[in-house]
């Protein structure tokens, strides 16, 4: 059965570590440490190397899911983790004033790898405010990026699973 490497990236606090923890069927490999800077104002820990979890899909394919650190000073890990990935999920924190700029930044940063694989966008911290999704669709259209966008609560396994399963079927059937 297929083994598929996917990478979840995006800004600090978007929910990468939480999302992998929500769906992984193995104990996750986590490298979160205490945040000592401005990050500590909104969460206690931050990822400094990677997250790793696994999920087996109904058809037997196994997803190997890697999470990146969000902070740019760990960008050397972005390149390491992107190698060999067949799909990228970019998580965006809708409650952040820089949400669109963050999405733009991560898409541009991973663009080369995305062009050789595929991607999906997950909008977190959006709750039931689904009319706000429009600005993300508009952005993706304006950039001619024909990829799916999902509202996700990273704490909810069903949300995250739906998104990564959609990504896996894009990889398997495209």
């Amino acid at each position, binding site marked *: 059965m297929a083994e598929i490497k996917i990478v979840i990236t995006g800004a600090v606090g978007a929910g990468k570590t939480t999302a992998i923890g929500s769906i992984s069927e193995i104990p996750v490999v986590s490298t979160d440490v205490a945040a000592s800077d401005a990050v500590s104002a909104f969460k206690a820990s931050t990822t*400094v190397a990677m997250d790793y979890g696994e999920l087996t899909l109904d058809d037997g394919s196994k997803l190997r899911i890697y999470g990146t650190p969000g902070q740019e000073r760990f960008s050397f890990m972005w390149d390491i983790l992107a190698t060999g990935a067949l799909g990228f999920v970019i998580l965006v924190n809708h409650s952040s004033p820089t949400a669109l700029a963050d999405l733009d930044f991560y898409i541009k940063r991973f663009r080369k790898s995305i062009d050789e694989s595929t991607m999906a966008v997950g909008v977190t911290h959006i709750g039931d405010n689904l009319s706000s999704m429009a600005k993300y669709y508009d952005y993706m259209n304006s950039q001619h990026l024909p990829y799916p966008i999902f509202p996700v609560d990273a704490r909810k396994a069903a949300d995250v699973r739906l998104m990564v399963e959609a990504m896996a079927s894009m990889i398997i059937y495209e």
Partner: protein
Amino acid sequence: MTGIIRTYVNEFVKDNDFVVASVVVSSDGHLVAGAQKKEYSLDRLSALGSTFMALGDSLAGEVAMGGCKDVIAELDGGIVAFMHVTRNVAIASVSDSSRSLGLLLSSTRGCIDSILRELKSLPKTKEEATN
């Protein structure tokens, strides 16, 4: 406090010919104090330092072997040793001699001990500080 740590790191790099750089970093990769004889980016070295230590700690957990004391990278042109100072602070020392492993570890350990002694002797309460 950072001032005292900086003094020890400066002395450590100055006193050991083979040590070309050393950084003390927070566990989330911020430079606390650093010294060097080269022109490295100490900020990038700091971020890498916290990543290596975090991977070492994850590895120790994975094989259920307690904590990770140090992570050693043996390079073609030298050695980099990453060691915990406290749970949330680490030190990375760079040597340009690939045969200096023992010396690098013991001298870095010495620097850590000096920093820890200083941390222990700090007044713990306001009253102690003003006495």
